[in-house]
């Protein structure tokens, strides 16, 4: 009787379809998509190579190394990275989400070029810096679930005209609060959208596209 009513039968089919779809999405994500997105654009050498801050977090749950090839020298890319930050030059990504709606800079801003180790970039702190080569940001403890996460940037010269820009984000997930239970699965899947956009935003600006 229950199964013969078209509406009830449709609801059962609807729920079954979603269960199948969610199971398929989880399997596809962990079997293939996660590895691909966590290492987007990066070679095996780049994902395994040491980067600043690696020693701060051992065996992180989130260990994302992304890379993009830019037609420029490290010296031409560096000023764009140095000036990044909330309410500074932005993150060259989704300005309404990560820069209070202020458009990310389209040019190099001289007053943001003298960044020093120890400087604060809102919820991030500059911990290591080697001009034209690498920079390490660590999230402040108070930055919610991101507290203590490390975000490293590296510039690796390929030839006289090309450089590989590499970003590595590392964090250990914990599920001690409702906020973290909600945050981590979402961030694991969605963080690539922001990081990729940011890195392509840098490439786009440096290459003058």
């Amino acid at each position, binding site marked *: 009787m229950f199964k*013969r009513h*078209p509406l009830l*039968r*449709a609801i059962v089919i609807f729920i079954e379809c979603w269960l199948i779809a969610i199971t398929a999405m989880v399997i596809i994500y962990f079997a293939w998509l996660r590895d691909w997105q966590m290492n987007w654009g990066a070679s095996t050498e780049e994902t395994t190579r040491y980067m600043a801050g690696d020693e701060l977090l051992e065996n992180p749950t989130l260990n994302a190394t992304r890379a993009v090839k830019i037609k420029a020298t490290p010296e031409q890319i560096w000023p764009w990275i140095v000036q990044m930050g909330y309410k500074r030059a932005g993150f060259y990504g*989704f300005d*309404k989400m990560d820069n209070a709606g202020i458009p990310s800079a389209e040019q190099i801003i001289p007053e943001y070029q003298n960044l020093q180790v120890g400087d604060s970039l809102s919820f991030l702190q500059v911990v290591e810096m080697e001009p034209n080569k690498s920079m390490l940001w660590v999230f402040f403890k108070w930055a919610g679930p991101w507290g203590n996460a490390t975000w490293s940037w590296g510039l690796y010269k390929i030839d006289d005209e090309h450089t590989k820009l590499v970003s590595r984000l590392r964090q250990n997930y914990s599920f001690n609060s409702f906020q973290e239970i909600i945050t981590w699965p979402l961030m694991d899947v969605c963080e690539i*959208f922001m990081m990729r*956009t940011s890195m392509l*935003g840098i490439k786009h600006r440096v290459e003058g*596209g």
Partner: protein
Amino acid sequence: MTDDNNTAIPEYKIKTFRWLFYISLLQLLVFFTVPILIYPAKLLLYGLILAALTVGVIFALFFLFVNIYGLFVDKNRKPLYIIMVILMSGWITWSVISWLWIEHMDYILR
């Protein structure tokens, strides 16, 4: 004894499918009320676009498959399902293009 007896789809199955179509359509409409509730008026359009390009794509895919199935099950409403398939395909294509060339999509970034 005609072939129609073999190929005819039971009325019950068509009715069930139509309910499935309405539930899936309702799901899509409810999904778009979420950004309306959480984004301030100033950011509403931005919120809707982001929702459509992220989680919305999954709902669009779901509705696309429902409509493709409808083409075979409910032949009397074929034109409606064709229109929906075109709309959903357009939505999915738009999101794929947007993410492929995100650095040029100023309407999402700014």
